[in-house]
């Protein structure tokens, strides 16, 4: 039933400056790339991709950036939130040598996918792109999977100085990459797609959502694709046909907001 179920927060962990992970008991089977609608009673209900899928425990990782995430940031172990889901299609792993590119908090939801890829003995190169080193998180967790982990910072405070998409461009040139998986700022993902003309590509999109069950139309992109039901993961072929991709999103009123 698509209504929030109250659940107790099992842990609240600070990952980096203004970035936290909350965990709660899994309501059932969840795939990497899927999301939950998280209800903060009295505040808001927002979509959150899963950043942890282990031992019947689900995690969400977010930055304290708006009213809802600010309220979520104050939530402590033992507090109650409402969840409904999981929603969306999730990622599909394909190929043997995979490149994962995470930008900002988009890094979080790639973690369970990389863990699954490594469990399946697939080779993984991971790029973690952040503005500055204080915002970096999950580096140890990615390294523990045996993936090759690279860091890029916009200000050069750690690792490669520049955008994650530029670092990815170098790797795509040098290495034989079978598929690219990404989550982060849409312009980063759009730039990355332009480097992947023949390489299978999957990106996780974020849009303002209301119903999350495919009827209200709020999160529609391109020719009526619903990010909540038909996504949030879209492949490169589909994204190339979507005029909105990397250009604009819609606010609560439905006005176009340029990225």
């Amino acid at each position, binding site marked *: 039933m698509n209504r929030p179920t109250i659940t107790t927060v099992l842990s609240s962990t600070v990952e980096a400056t203004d970035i936290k992970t909350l965990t709660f008991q899994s309501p059932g089977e969840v795939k990497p790339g899927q999301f939950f609608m998280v209800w903060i009673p009295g505040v*808001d209900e927002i979509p959150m991709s899963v950043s942890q899928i282990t031992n019947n425990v689900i995690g969400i990782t977010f930055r304290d950036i708006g009213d809802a995430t600010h309220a979520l940031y104050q939530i402590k172990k033992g507090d109650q939130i409402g969840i409904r889901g999981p929603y969306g299609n999730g990622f599909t792993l394909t190929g043997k040598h995979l490149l994962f590119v995470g930008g900002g908090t988009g890094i979080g939801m790639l973690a369970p996918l990389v863990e699954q890829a490594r469990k399946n003995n697939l080779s993984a190169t991971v790029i973690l792109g952040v503005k500055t080193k204080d915002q970096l998180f999950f580096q140890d967790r990615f390294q523990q999977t045996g993936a090759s982990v690279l860091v890029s910072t916009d200000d050069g405070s750690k690792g490669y100085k520049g955008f994650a998409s530029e670092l990815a461009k170098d790797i795509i040139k040098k290495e034989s990459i079978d598929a690219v998986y990404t989550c982060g700022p849409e312009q980063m993902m759009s730039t990355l797609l332009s480097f992947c003309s023949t390489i299978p590509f999957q990106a996780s999109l974020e849009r303002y959502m209301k119903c999350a069950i495919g009827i209200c139309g709020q999160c529609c992109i391109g020719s*009526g694709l619903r990010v909540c039901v038909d996504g949030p993961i879209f492949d490169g072929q589909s994204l190339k046909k979507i005029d909105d991709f990397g250009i604009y999103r819609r606010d609560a*009123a439905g006005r176009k907001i340029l990225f």
Partner: protein
Amino acid sequence: MLASGIMDEDAGGMQRMIDCGAGAIVTKSIGTQPREGYANPTVIELDHGILNAMGLPNPGIDLYGEEIKKLRTNKVPIIGSIYAADADEFASLALKMQRFGANAVELNVSCPHAQHYGLEVGCDPVLLHDIVSSVKNHVTFPVFVKVSPNIMNLVEIVQSIENAGADAIVAINTVKAMTIDLETARPLLANKTGGYSGKAIKPIGVRCVFDIAQAVDIPIIGVGGITTGEDAVEYFMAGASAVQIGSAVYYRGPDVFTSICEEIKTWMKNHEYTTIPELIGAALR
């Protein structure tokens, strides 16, 4: 046809419903200014229906006009739904809808969860007469009026709408309702109360259409809980000439339009009806 408020945020969503077999599209309700609507939760599924309090979110008529213009190449009629607080605003919105290329307008005087709008306008027969007359004086395309089941004076209201010159009545909008989360003792919808749609409200809609059909001569468009072809047939028998589909897009997916049309045909064949007019108002005869 597609009911207002479903998959109608932008031209892409509405085009998909057209491609899935919708015979006409009713847009989301549009006002003069952009409006963000309520915070989430705005949509909650219940055992036998869907509860929502969106709060009339829309980008305003001028921006939404761009979406309507993109749909003009279709043969399928586009019906612009509009909401306003008085006759002048309704007339100005209707005129803009006509200029953008909409083929008809549906006046939302029945939304149960927006202060100063919707139902607050739609339960006053004098104000409604004024609004409908004013809109009719400003536009040349058909004017539909969507009424609420949440009123005691339904017959008086629809007669007032007919007398003012409306071309059709659309019935019904959602039923005012709420749900409470027991663990937190809080209403689940951010707006606390909202409108109930889906399977549970079909008998309420059928009753309203049946009563309206006996009170007016203009056509009725039935809406409320139609999920299958048989549901549509029931509305036809109550007096509806056409039907709209909303929540069933959730229950059965976007292909629901084609499925329901096929089911109507099959039912008619099995019951030796050859045309829809034979069904319309069958329960009134």
